């Protein structure tokens, strides 16, 4: 069972690197032989050179698009899939503008990036992907057998992408 929870201090600014920050929590069960939501490919990159987020702010922003793209394509390669095989990209809820730049670099039209929750709930830090995935399923956008990529970035800097079969 994986659980994640994030809460901002009371007086903290709720805008970080151009994103509106929310509080929230989520949980997921990871099992060796799942009946559904099978993991097809996973990629994780860490660049310790950006450990000091404040000092390397501009470098992190500059590295964001190349490294996010790298994580995405590495995960797809491990899943032996191409962007055309994906029904949706499940993003993390950082600023929408960044997805308008990144989506074409991933070979995806914006219609295939699930952005509904960016304006609705903001960036719930580590819970974005789980919440967005469940909401996309609840909205009927995904059915069993569809393939999706869940992409996430964290300060540090970490980039992760998980390809799932719904």
């Amino acid at each position, binding site marked *: 069972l994986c659980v994640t929870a994030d809460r901002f201090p009371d007086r903290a600014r709720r805008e970080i690197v*151009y994103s509106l920050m929310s509080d929230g929590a989520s949980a997921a069960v990871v099992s060796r032989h799942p009946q559904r939501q099978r993991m097809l490919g996973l990629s994780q990159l860490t*660049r310790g*050179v950006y450990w000091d987020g404040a000092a*390397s702010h*501009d470098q992190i*922003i*500059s590295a964001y698009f190349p490294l996010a793209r790298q994580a995405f394509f590495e995960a797809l390669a491990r899943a032996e899939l191409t962007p055309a095989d994906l029904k949706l990209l499940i993003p993390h809820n950082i600023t929408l503008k960044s997805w*308008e*730049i990144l989506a*074409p670099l991933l070979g995806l039209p914006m219609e295939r990036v699930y952005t509904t929750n960016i304006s609705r709930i903001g960036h719930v830090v580590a819970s974005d992907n789980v919440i967005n995935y469940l909401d996309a399923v609840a909205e009927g956008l995904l059915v069993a057998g569809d393939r999706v990529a869940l992409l996430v970035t964290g300060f540090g800097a970490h980039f992760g992408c998980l390809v799932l079969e719904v």
Partner: protein
Amino acid sequence: MHVLVTGAGIVGSEAVRVLLSRRLRVSVLLRGSPAEHEQKALALRAWVGPHAADALDCVPGNIELAELGLESRARAGLADVTHVLHVAACTSLLSSREQAQAANVAGTAGVLAFARQLPRLAHLAHVSTAYLDDQTSGLVYERPLPEAGVEFHTEYARSKAQAEALVLRSELPASICRLSLVLGRLSDGHLPRMNDAPYALMRLLRDGLLSMFPSAPGQRVDMLPLDFAAESLVALLLAPKTATSIYHVAAGKERSPTIAEYLGSIQETLTELDPSWARRGLPAPLAVPREVFARYVQTMEEIAGDRLRSIARKLEGFTRPIQLPKDFDRSQFESKLGPLACELPHARSWLPRVIAHAFEVDFRGDVSGPARRPGRSAS
């Protein structure tokens, strides 16, 4: 033969060195206050090296002023000029309309008016730019631009096109030499100043601040080493003059790297000079369609802090001329210069040396051409 060179910037300084090495008498216009003039003259003499001091005359003047701002004695000293190399220009891609018009259009008009008064004038070579507009993609020919319908990517390009039109209408024995992007010397990588776009990109990449770059797959960027550029300009200037001609002083398709090769060459050179730079794992910049790049620049403008906004603006300015894939035909250039035009090797053989030199001197321009500075770490 007496050659007037209208400025001693990057290309002008090297052209003066080449002219002096041919034992020609050279006068160079240097603008600025007496103290600035003195400083520029010293820098130029250091750059050109040990040539006969009396063969080089540094003349206070300014192409933007009437009669080039020359004092009567200086004007009399230039009365026997036989060749004019008009190289003075405002070359910043980020220059305002006023700056570009004053230096490049009014300045060229002033040089042409002065040249008309030279009784022994044999040839005037006007240095223009190969990257004149962003409407053309594919092969660009050595022809005049259309008089209407051209949308210019910068005020710099607009002003250079207007200056070309002035030269073509001048009825002087003149040529237009459209110069490609110029980097350090083939021989040693040296360059008097390292502020221009190719060097700015090297710095951004080294510092991990170059996220993306507009480029179509396989798109080339035409670039020349300084010494080849200057040798070619001097050879064109001194060649027997026929009709008014336009030359692309460019590398051409066969000798130009792709943008990906250029950026890769910077990374490889950095890795070789400083393995610790490579261990940082900074990502390679992405070559992206220009629409995506435009959105990136716009987003940085809207939401980024001062530094990234400034970088995005500069990148946008630097890359405007090369946002559409283009190559330069150089048939007339090759036909005029013969074997010299073909001596230039492919950029992949000289770029690493030029890039390495820039990092070794940490982008401080070389005051002295021949002397090498001690090596430095890349970062």
